[in-house]
């Protein structure tokens, strides 16, 4: 009995010390809608350099945005990193974001990448693309599609992958709604489903599936392929940018905002400054292969220059009706597959 008691007490003490620290006031709490593998190391190095302790909640961009709304006054989030301007816009619309200082906003070179009200800003840019396997296309006798809307054609049956629960995909749908209207967007999604589009949880598995030949092509952000290529240059998969201002060629941003309820606005600003600085921007261009958003950092040479992408005529701050998009995606049946 005695040994048992000792054992239990030891276990208890060990447990309590082993558990990660509970929320403390001097820790910067980050809600990240970006994957741990994409930003985790960068956040760690910020913590090492600045001496600011951080804790990160990783999740889906839309889910975290809705969590911040649900938490309201009680939200522990000190800063929100999103992989899509739409979620940031949605929070701005709810009146939950604090205005960012001018000097931070001024760091971003393209005014299209900053909220008009100064409530959020871009950290990096990304383009929506079609990743495809040239061999698979050749085998099936397929040409590259002119438009994302062409993927509903019979020749693409069962050959395309998408990730309807992914934030970047949802932003693309919001853009399509702006450009084509709800009805046409819904019809496109339903036609895609009728055309046996393959569903994946995220972008990475889509690229993996294209590399494996499981599908011929997939709707993803541009940068995932480069991360695979960095490890294995023999991969033949390629990127296709839809031409002519197609709704499938959206250029979106990953960005950040500081909630009004943030207990650590200075630390949060320091983190944004860090990510817009040389270390951060170099990380985004060389490690995640995204587009830089500040003037003096060049993009990776492998990338098609941003100016050459024929993006649709759209204001990023207008794609903030995330809930409308989520409803539409649900209505289309994309989540039931």
């Amino acid at each position, binding site marked *: *009995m005695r040994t*048992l008691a000792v054992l*239990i007490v030891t*276990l*208890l003490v060990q*447990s*309590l010390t*082993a*558990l*990660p620290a*509970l*929320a403390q006031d001097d820790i910067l*709490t980050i809600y990240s809608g970006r*994957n*741990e*593998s994409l930003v*985790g*190391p960068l956040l760690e190095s910020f913590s090492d350099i600045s001496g600011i302790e951080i*804790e*990160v*909640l*990783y999740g*889906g961009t*839309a*889910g975290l*945005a*809705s969590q911040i*709304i*649900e*938490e309201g006054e*009680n939200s*522990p989030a000190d800063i929100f990193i999103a992989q899509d301007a739409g979620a940031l816009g*949605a929070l701005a619309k709810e009146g939950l974001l604090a205005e960012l200082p001018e000097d931070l906003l001024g760091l971003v070179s393209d005014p299209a990448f900053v909220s008009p009200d100064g409530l959020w800003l871009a950290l990096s840019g990304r383009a929506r693309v079609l990743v495809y396997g040239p061999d698979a296309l050749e085998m099936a006798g397929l040409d590259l599609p002119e438009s994302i809307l062409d993927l509903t054609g019979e020749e693409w049956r069962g050959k395309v992958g998408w990730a309807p*629960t992914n934030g970047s995909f949802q932003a693309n749908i919001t853009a399509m709604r702006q450009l084509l209207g709800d009805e046409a967007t819904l019809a496109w999604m339903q036609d895609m489903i009728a055309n046996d589009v*393959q*569903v994946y*949880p*995220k972008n*990475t*598995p889509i690229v*993996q*599936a294209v590399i*494996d*030949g*499981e599908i011929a092509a997939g709707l993803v952000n541009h940068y995932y392929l480069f*991360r*695979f290529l*960095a*490890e*294995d240059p023999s991969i033949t998969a390629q990127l296709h940018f839809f031409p002519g201002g197609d709704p499938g060629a959206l250029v979106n941003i990953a960005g950040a905002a500081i909630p009004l309820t943030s207990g650590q606005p200075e630390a949060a600003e320091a983190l944004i400054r860090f990510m817009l600085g040389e270390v951060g921007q170099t990380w985004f261009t060389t*490690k995640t292969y995204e587009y830089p958003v500040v003037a003096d950092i060049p993009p990776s040479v492998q990338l098609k220059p941003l100016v050459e992408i024929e993006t649709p005529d759209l204001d990023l701050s207008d794609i903030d009706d*995330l*809930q409308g998009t*989520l409803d539409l995606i*649900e*209505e289309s*049946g994309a*989540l*039931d*597959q």
Partner: protein
Amino acid sequence: MTAGPRLPRLDRHQALQFIAVVTALVVLLPLAWLVLRATGAGAEGLAWALRPRTLTILVNSIVLTVTVVAGALAIGLPFAWLTARCEFPLRRFWLIAGLLTMVVPSYLGAVTLLAAFGPRGLLYDLLAALMPLERLPDMRGWFGAWLSITLITWPFIALPARAVLLGSDPALEEAARSLGLGRWQVFRRVTLPLLRPALAGGSLLVALYTLSDFGAVAVMRYNAFTRAIYLQYTSSFDRERAAILALMLILLTLFLLLLERRLGQQRGGARLGAGAQRRLELQQIGRWRWPAVLFCALLVALGVALPVGVLGSWLTRRALFNVTAPDMGMLTATTASVSALAALAAGVLALPLALLLRRRHSRLSHWLVALTHGGNVLPGIVVALALVFFAARFLPAWYQTVPLLLLGYVTRFLPLAISASRGALESISPRLEEAARGLGQRPWQVVLRIYVPLARAGILAGIALVFLSVMKELPTTLVLAPIGTRTFATHIWSAYSEALLSIIGGPGLLLLGVSALGLIAILLRERQPGAAPGSGVALLRELPRRARAHALAVLVHLR
């Protein structure tokens, strides 16, 4: 003893009931809030619940449940028959190896099945080497979910059925044979009715497991309730809808319990005449031996060898890009400590409830304990959602903390600890308590000096079972774990959703290994004389007799 004014004291029974009421409230209040929240959506919510797309989810869940139960019966009954009654090569080995399928969490079963039989899985690689082939038909959807869940739930049928087949009186069947019935007729008219309560109890377990399973349906992308709730919760702004779906799932679960109550009515098969029951002789099944071996081998291959093999192959798989290897030390420490804390809390809370059950007069006490089973029958995702909603509204300080996570675990797994302690307490003579009280011991001293030491085995078994369950738990952890707290289960989950297979192998194998050791330890304990009834497999053996109460406990253990 000095005379003087004394405060009125709760006597022990009242104190127990007080603790029981508090525990039941803690378990039930969040659920009540969830229901309130769902019904608060009013007519609009009802319209949303009744629209065709939502009803599809209901149909999906029902289809999956019915087919999995059918599949589990089709596998479990023959397996029970073979291992209980027939002589064939390696019978004992197949029995143990087959039971090991129970330790595979559904998400691991599903991801490894997909890796093997997916469109471009291992099977594809084999076949593509022989013939030109673009890809295999996609098993995701109903078939994949059905296969993954059936492969790990059939022991729920096999174990109780086997217990009946081992324990039934051979004289019954012999009498039927001697009266001219053929083998098949004997089975249908004598054995099957004897098996009926066991099969009904086992089917209930399978059905409850299927309804509450999250991992397999999520991996296989089958839109049953649990997946739909999770999607609504994580990717929509409108959280009322997740609550509405959760309420629908609660109602479906209650319906299932009622259904089983009606179908599973007990029929006696007891020996009335004098004389003792003879031991069963194993049947010689001649050339049917080989199909029997093949059947068992297939089950073991799919249910045990395949997950282990695939996870092992992932161990050596090269990471595709700069994946940071998981901090196994941290992961192990976190998993072990939340599991240990939850198990201890459940063990401690279970004791007063189990003691209360010893006094059998009180209707109230039975109801209270029955109610605490609520958190256990209900799917983990529902329990987690209830706690999140409740904490966000009423306990902001608890929100996103380890204590809330532990509360979720305790809510789900307390009944397991209750059943285990209860079994052990029942074997203690009430005379001991009377004697101790007579010698001047206080009630709490009686508990500490008599009940706890004597029922130690059962209490520890309960704690161990809760530990094993928490270690594998996915949906509750996914929703309730505070920032930065990661267990094996959530680590595997997030790595899988990013296709980072190389970092799943280690934690996956470790999880399976510890669970398998746990199961084997429990199986071995069973064989010791004097092992606490109510622990581990004894629960399964008792299934036909006390199907409902214990069924629930077993369910948690095996989950």
